[in-house]
């Protein structure tokens, strides 16, 4: 109980600080005066947040069973990115999110977070995509997995488990995250590309204008990609989710055992 409570508090702190760092061009208009250093510092902050969440997960649940399980699942998910070539899809379509959502949904928030964050890390390592954008991707994908455990709570409350409503809520959730992921990833990059320094910021007017500019930038650059991602997510969930959940259920029943501590020599 104490374990879960402390985990909950840590996650709240990290969520606030992480969002605050990402949203800082809105919250602190001054951030845009140092636009070049801005994304790097945000990445460093988010990297620290990630380390804390990882540490919390590591000391609370990670043992050899979960390490093996997650390692294999992450390898599958990183491989899904390459399967895109096997089955042609439209631009922006990414098949990785559905497995992250389902893992977080079935196995809980902590495993979901690890699944999301480490999928990004491993596919970054494989494709040579290590860079300052990685912490943002990792924490956002982690949040995708973490928040999907809330859905499990909702579904068991209304007794929707193993009914069509379960798949429908999952599909809506995945469509929502498909859009939100693009918006958050753009936030990281935006102050870098669309600003000028030395603008006299009247802070009250700044926020509205900021939001207007961001909306224009978002509509111009990434809306189409995000829509295809959302549609792809919904398709994948509606076709694959039921079967994958059944596989997970069987697997959990088999895997749900504990090693007893032997007598110490």
């Amino acid at each position, binding site marked *: 109980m104490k374990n879960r409570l402390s985990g909950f508090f840590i996650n709240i702190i990290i969520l606030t600080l992480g969002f605050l760092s990402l949203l800082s061009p809105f919250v*602190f208009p001054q951030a845009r005066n140092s636009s070049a250093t801005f994304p790097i510092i945000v990445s460093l902050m988010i990297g*620290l947040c990630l380390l804390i969440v990882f540490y919390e997960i590591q000391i609370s649940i990670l*043992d050899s069973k979960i390490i093996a399980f997650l390692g*294999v699942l992450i*390898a599958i998910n990183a491989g899904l990115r390459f399967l895109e070539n096997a089955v042609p899809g439209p631009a922006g379509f990414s098949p990785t999110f559905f497995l992250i959502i389902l893992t977080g949904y079935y196995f809980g928030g902590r495993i979901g977070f690890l699944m999301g964050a480490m999928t990004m890390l491993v596919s970054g390592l*494989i494709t040579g995509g290590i860079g300052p954008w990685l912490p943002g991707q990792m924490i956002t994908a982690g949040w995708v997995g973490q928040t999907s455990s809330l859905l499990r709570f909702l579904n068991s409350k209304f007794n929707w488990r193993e009914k069509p409503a379960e798949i429908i809520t999952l599909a809506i959730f995945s469509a929502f995250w498909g859009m939100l992921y693009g918006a958050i990833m753009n936030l990281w990059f935006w102050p870098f*590309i669309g600003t000028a320094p030395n603008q006299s910021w009247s802070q009250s007017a700044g926020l509205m204008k900021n939001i207007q500019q961001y909306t224009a930038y978002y509509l111009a650059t990434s809306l189409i990609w995000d829509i295809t991602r959302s549609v792809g997510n919904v398709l994948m969930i509606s076709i694959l989710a039921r079967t994958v959940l059944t596989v997970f259920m069987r697997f959990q029943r088999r895997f749900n055992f504990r090693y007893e501590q032997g007598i110490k020599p």
Partner: protein
Amino acid sequence: MKTSGVWILWLIFNLLFLLSTRNPVYLLIVLTGLLLSGYRMTRKNQRASWLKNNLRFLLTMVLLSALINALFTHNGRTVLFSFPQHWLLIGGNITLESVVYGTINGLTIGALYLLFTIINLALSVKQLTRLIPRAFHPIAMTVTIALTFFPSIQQRAREIKEAQMIRGNRMKKISDWLPLFIPLLVTSLEKSILLSESMTARGFHIPSRLKNSGLPFLGLLSALFFSFSGWILHLFSYPLLISALLYFVGGALVMATFLLSSQQTRITHFQKEVWHSADILMGIFLSVLILLWILFTINKLLPSLTYSPYPALLSPPFQIIGLLLSAVTFIPLLLSKHD
């Protein structure tokens, strides 16, 4: 230069330099250095396509950034043409200064991207995985397992796909993925059970609750707190010294936490990295350079290397020290002859 430590120092120095200068001359020098080193590092038959892809990316970034900046910001004196004022956001003067500013932004982004591409080229996946601190060894283990299983899972996916295609599955729609994906998932999960059993049999059952785990936790949290408040103070233009101090405390706390908690875990060393004398010299040189840079910037001893086209366009200034510092990007190129 083969050791990952030296490469990381080189990366840090270049990041510091790139983020503090906005002078197009230095940026172009850095970009040339990066492109040449990258060209050297790729395999012989892929060099042309590597150069083409990166130049294309650079050009796209510069054009996009110049366009967006020109449309959205209307500062500057040299007016090229203007849109009617009542147009939302883009209404107003389109100035030469904002085009130049956008171009410089694009060059910086391109250089940052290239810098990390070169780190990815220079360091192998194994070296990158080793950079995960020892305090996070379960995470590193998971990464290693994922990287090890990746090729075999791809192989199995190919086999299942072929088997399905023989049975008449065309693999065109998303619903055709189901008979591919489910066997893959089931067999891989079976393998993970085997793997976990063999890990436990070899003594890798992590004591999941480490002794006094609260201390490192507290260290990391307070490190986050210190650096975050340093950043916020910096944003509200408090003196740089205060935020530098806070950053330093945060960084030192992270380092101390890593050191302390890595002492609790014992690991075996396998194929250690060898530091050659050239690497040691290079490492010392780069760390001294970084330290001097930080000290000089805090005390404002360095002439300002930055450049801004606002309010009116002037030709960028030209300093010897800037030229020397931007030449650091060429170091891997010079050293690679000896490797």
